[in-house]
């Protein structure tokens, strides 16, 4: 019965960018710190604070775009994705919707039989990560750690060009 069905896969990958500081603040991104010790006022969404964009996150996104042969947008837009969740301190995520920084590109993968397969990339854009919600060990409560909030992410969207789990 499985022969009647074709496997078609597209991927949406959130890649954490290895910057020293967060995408919109000067707090550290190093992994493993004690809860909320790497969350500054901007990451905690205090009243009155403002985001300032990390040049290295932009550079890394552009490098990726060049590597996949994509058009790099000279003008791209950051937009707010508004929703409520306790690990999203501003009540919105700064992301990109229209006019992402990286446009259409592609990359080649090598299959088991030695042939190359071209995977299309639809777009890639910059956005910030949310914090972490911890449920274990707390009676009737969830604990929020915002160390991860504001870590730069590159969201990479592939075309539905993958035909097997092996391609991922």
């Amino acid at each position, binding site marked *: 019965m499985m022969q009647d069905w074709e496997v078609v896969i597209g991927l949406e990958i959130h890649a954490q960018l290895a910057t020293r500081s967060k995408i919109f603040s000067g707090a*550290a991104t190093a992994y493993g710190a004690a809860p909320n010790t790497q969350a500054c*006022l901007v990451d905690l969404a*205090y009243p009155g604070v403002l985001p300032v964009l*990390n040049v290295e996150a932009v550079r890394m996104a552009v490098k990726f775009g060049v590597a996949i042969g994509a058009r790099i947008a000279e003008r791209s837009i950051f937009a707010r994705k508004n929703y*409520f969740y306790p690990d999203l301190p501003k009540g919105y995520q700064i992301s990109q919707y229209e006019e992402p920084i990286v446009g259409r590109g592609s990359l080649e993968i090598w299959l088991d039989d030695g042939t190359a397969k071209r995977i299309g990339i639809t777009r890639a854009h910059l956005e910030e990560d949310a914090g972490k*919600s911890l449920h274990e060990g707390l009676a009737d409560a969830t604990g929020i750690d915002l160390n991860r909030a504001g870590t730069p992410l590159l969201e990479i969207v592939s075309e539905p060009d993958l035909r097997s789990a092996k391609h991922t």
Partner: protein
Amino acid sequence: MSLTSRDVEKIAHLARLGITDPEKPVYAASLSKIVEFVDQLARADTGAVAPMAHPLAGQTQRLRADAVTETDCHERCQRDAPAVQAGLYLVPKVIE
């Protein structure tokens, strides 16, 4: 364009605002008046005009060097927080 109490419920839920039952028709009435007032924008001939997000036409995006400039502030920040334990901000258990 008239908004109903049901509309108020939906909007209030999106905005996570607790509105009591007696308040719903009151907000429905005032929101209806506001929406009716702003409906006049439909008359404007905006043809090929691009939407204006902010008044800083011609400015380029400011970029910040990738350096760690902020230090741990959790003691000060959590001093007045509503509920904290082991450095974590506590909220009622969120069921996934």
